[in-house]
């Protein structure tokens, strides 16, 4: 055995507190080490060339690099030794940076620790076995969860790239939050006018299977081979017959249903088509408000429907789909007004959220685009917008900025002036965040051309006085308290994770941050991937963002899937468990403890039952290895012998 040891200076990061030359000197004395040297930046191209050259020159058959954390460059170096002709698992890294040089300044202590780290790595690498990844086939179909603008973009890009797409949308129609908007900033385009064509493309694309009013029930499998169960929720209307004529909606006697699409601005009928441009344009019954369901007698819609599409007996249906990759575009939520008690906590009807105001502004909304106060339906003349209602507020657990509120407030203020020329809008703000193209010009336009008064200061309290609402805020630039008597107050409520985001994450086995937003692989360099292979992110489910960013991420996620599917097979990680069936006694303890269900029973020809690892599902956690009473199942590259060699190196010598 001829082990080569390469100790990295990493500039001053390691060499600053570790005597790398001494470490190399000690390494040369270790049994099995044929060559040891130091290098300034081992991960650089010349550094890697040096390793390859040394392997050839010194006839090395194992390599140890003592440098940074393996999380940084283990993959890089494995590829290097592979290019030099060795199996990539004949390589070990000793972390003498994050675990050593970066911890303290004591050179002697650090150098000794580095020497020990190298010793451990050398003993381990001597025990390593060559491992070979297996390849498995992938199902080139993709699941997109969420039919908002990010999800639709991802679906369209995948489908146009030739892949079959399954798109699952929780609400009855495509469109997500963007479909609810009146206009979009900074161009003041009509939102549904630019979104509608995308919705039509999705619904008509031959490669996209759309499941609307459906949710993900269960996900089994692994990257390249997922088995998905989708729950098609009962709409109580046969969508294969429904034409979206709306006759049922007109005649429905139950008028107090909660309108989810309109965020409760006004009630709707128990049977409802969410909005005129909905796709699919089909009716759905809300059983909580339907008299047929709650009282047992009505049936008006069934009588009226010209195609007999109503079916009160409908049940949820579970369908199965198989895909190879998943793109999550499940969107975001908004905090409830009850989290803002100093603004009325939702008790004052004329204090509304930004999205509710958007529905009021919208010509196909519940007020037909007429701006009216919810309390008495009169036209407001003084409208106050409150930025950061919940955002950047540590005291309610939302310390982050919600990304797009500054922009939509400017937009809504401009639209208000258009609708009501003699109105006056005020905006209370702490900062104005308008970084995108044309964004700052847009917010300036609101102030310069549309006479919107921007007041720098937060709002402490809103209370009713007669028919008006007194908004008590501060103007920190003037240095005093200011009050505005408003007819209507619009709160830019904070963006939060979508309801049930955490439950969906658990089904997908992906991580979420403390706020429920899904965690990307790397915040800078890998924003649309997750640490779970095969699952990608797009849009606001990863963090609050506006439409162009969501669309960009939709396309990016699609690109990732298309590139993953450009090969016919995927490599599986060989650092998984393997059973020595000669030793296995068939106690099945490993099967019971495996959290991934990756071990199954196998009957041998002699009738013995032994354990067998399903290679593609095993995540390499090692729990089975520690459970097995006879050491029959071993985690490759981390076997008992290999780990014991490390312990012995440290404790016995």
């Amino acid at each position, binding site marked *: 055995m001829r082990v080569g040891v390469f100790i990295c200076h990493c500039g001053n990061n390691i060499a600053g507190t570790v005597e790398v030359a001494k470490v190399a000197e000690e390494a040369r004395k270790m049994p099995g080490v044929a060559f040891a040297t130091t290098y300034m930046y081992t991960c650089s191209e010349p550094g890697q060339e040096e390793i390859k050259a040394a392997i050839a020159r010194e006839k090395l058959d194992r390599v140890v690099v003592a440098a940074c954390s393996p999380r940084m460059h283990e993959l890089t170096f494995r590829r290097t030794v592979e290019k030099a002709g060795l199996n990539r698992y004949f390589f070990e890294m000793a972390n003498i940076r994050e675990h050593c040089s970066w911890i303290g300044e004591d050179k002697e202590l650090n150098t000794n620790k580095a020497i020990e780290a190298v010793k451990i790595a050398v003993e381990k690498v001597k025990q390593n076995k060559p491992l070979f990844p297996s390849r498995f086939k992938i199902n080139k179909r993709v699941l997109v969860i969420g039919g908002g603008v990010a999800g639709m973009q991802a679906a369209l890009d995948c489908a146009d790239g030739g892949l079959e797409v399954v798109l699952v949308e929780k609400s009855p129609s495509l469109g997500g939050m963007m479909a609810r908007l009146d206009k979009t900033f900074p161009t003041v385009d009509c939102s549904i006018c630019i979104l509608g064509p995308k919705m039509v493309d999705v619904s008509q694309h031959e490669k996209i299977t759309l499941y609307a009013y459906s949710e993900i029930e269960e996900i089994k499998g692994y990257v390249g081979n997922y088995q998905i169960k989708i729950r098609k929720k009962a709409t109580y209307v046969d969508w294969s017959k429904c034409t979206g004529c709306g006759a049922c909606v007109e005649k429905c006697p139950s008028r107090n249903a909660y309108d989810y699409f309109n965020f409760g601005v006004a009630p709707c009928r128990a049977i409802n088509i969410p909005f005129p441009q909905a796709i699919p344009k089909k009716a759905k019954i809300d059983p909580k408000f339907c008299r047929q369901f709650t009282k047992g007698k009505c049936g008006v819609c069934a009588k009226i429907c010209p195609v007999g599409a109503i079916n009160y007996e409908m049940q949820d249906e579970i369908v199965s789909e198989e895909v190879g990759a998943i793109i999550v575009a499940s969107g975001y939520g908004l905090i409830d007004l009850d989290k803002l*008690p*100093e603004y009325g*906590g939702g*008790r004052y009807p004329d204090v509304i959220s930004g999205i509710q105001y958007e529905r009021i502004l919208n010509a196909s909304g519940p007020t037909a685009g007429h701006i009216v106060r919810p309390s008495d339906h009169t036209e407001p003349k003084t409208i106050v917008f409150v930025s950061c209602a919940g955002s950047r507020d540590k005291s309610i657990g939302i310390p982050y900025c919600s990304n797009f509120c500054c922009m939509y407030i400017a937009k809504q203020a401009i639209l208000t002036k258009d609708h009501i020329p003699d109105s006056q809008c005020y905006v209370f703000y702490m900062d104005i965040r308008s970084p995108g193209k044309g964004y700052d010009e847009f917010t300036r336009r609101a102030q310069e051309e549309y006479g919107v008064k921007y007041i720098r200061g937060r709002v402490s309290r809103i*209370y*009713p*006085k*007669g028919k008006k609402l007194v908004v008590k805020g501060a103007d920190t630039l003037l240095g005093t308290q200011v009050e505005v008597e408003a007819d209507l107050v619009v709160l830019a409520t904070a963006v939060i994770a979508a309801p049930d985001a955490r439950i969906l994450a658990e089904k997908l086995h992906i991580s979420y941050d403390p706020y429920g937003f899904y965690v990307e692989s790397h915040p800078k360099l890998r924003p649309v991937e997750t640490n779970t292979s095969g699952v990608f992110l797009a849009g606001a489910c990863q963090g609050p963002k506006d439409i162009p960013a969501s669309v960009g991420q939709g396309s990016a996620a699609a690109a990732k899937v298309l590139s993953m599917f450009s090969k016919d097979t995927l490599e599986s990680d060989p650092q998984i468990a393997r059973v020595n069936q000669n030793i296995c006694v068939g106690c099945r303890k490993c099967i019971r403890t495996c959290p991934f269900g990756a071990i199954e029973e196998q009957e041998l020809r002699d009738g013995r039952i032994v354990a067998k690892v399903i290679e593609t599902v095993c995540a390499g956690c090692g729990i089975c290895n520690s459970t097995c009473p006879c050491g029959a199942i071993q985690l490759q590259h981390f076997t008992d012998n290999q780990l014991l060699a490390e312990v012995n190196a440290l404790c016995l010598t």
Partner: protein
Amino acid sequence: MAEKEYVYFPGCSLEASAIEYDLSVRKVLGALGVKLIELDDWSCCGSTPAHSVDHGFAAAVAARNLALVEKMGHSTLITPCPACLSAFKKAHLRMEKDKDFQKEVNSLLDEPYQGGVTAKSVLQIIYEDIGIKAVAEKVKIDLPDLQVAPYYGCIINRPPAVMEFDDPENPVAMDRLMEAVGIKVCDFAFKVECCGAAFGVTKRKMVNELSAKVLAMALEAGANCLVVTCQLCHQNLDLRQEQINRTMGTSFNLPVLFFTQVIGLTYGFSPQELGIDKHNINAEPLIKSRRPVEERIKEEEEKAKAKKPKPKKAEEEES
């Protein structure tokens, strides 16, 4: 109902200028079966003046009383005064979190405070420990003319991390208690707006202006009476009401009652017993229409009887 027992800290002003608060608290808690043991030889909590000198000093002045409660073998102290409550809770909390502070404070006391006393307001124990149901059970008298705006004052439940009671923006304890004893409660937006606090003597005009806002909002809410739980608020709003009118050019004539006085009236105590006659603004016009609940029930029954004939007619028509 098992008899409840509490160690009671009246606070300095309840012995003198706010004696009616003490009278009504004792009457109402007595009626509810609560035994009050006045803290033996209690001293002033220090209030604002003490905490303007030094926090360790202020905590010592307050904690002397907490140590006395411990000496009595009790672990709860109740007080009607929000300022006293704030002094006790702040002293206790800081001494609990910061052991150096605890040492410093105890070095000023002759008997150290060990940290075992929870202080609560009278409002809190009536609302939480005794409960709405038990409070409602004792009601004998209707007060049909009262329309109250419940005014909590700024510190009985703020900051929430210290006072640990009710909602800091929209408290409801007094609202629910008033409803429970059959009083009409108005939707009042200034529940926790400061009335001027302890500046009455030194900055009279400032206090008058701030108190005037509270009175004006009460009228806006449709109230004809303010109900309070703090005697300093009471003084600023009631005793100084003519001062307010002079300063502001207003003509307020709004009676201000302690919530315990209102409850006491519904239990059948006389205004004299509850100290209502000691107030500045006369509350008599609003409470003189009080009458036993049975009378109202009887009246309602008679009215219902008078309406009965109608169903008979419909039956006749049908047959």
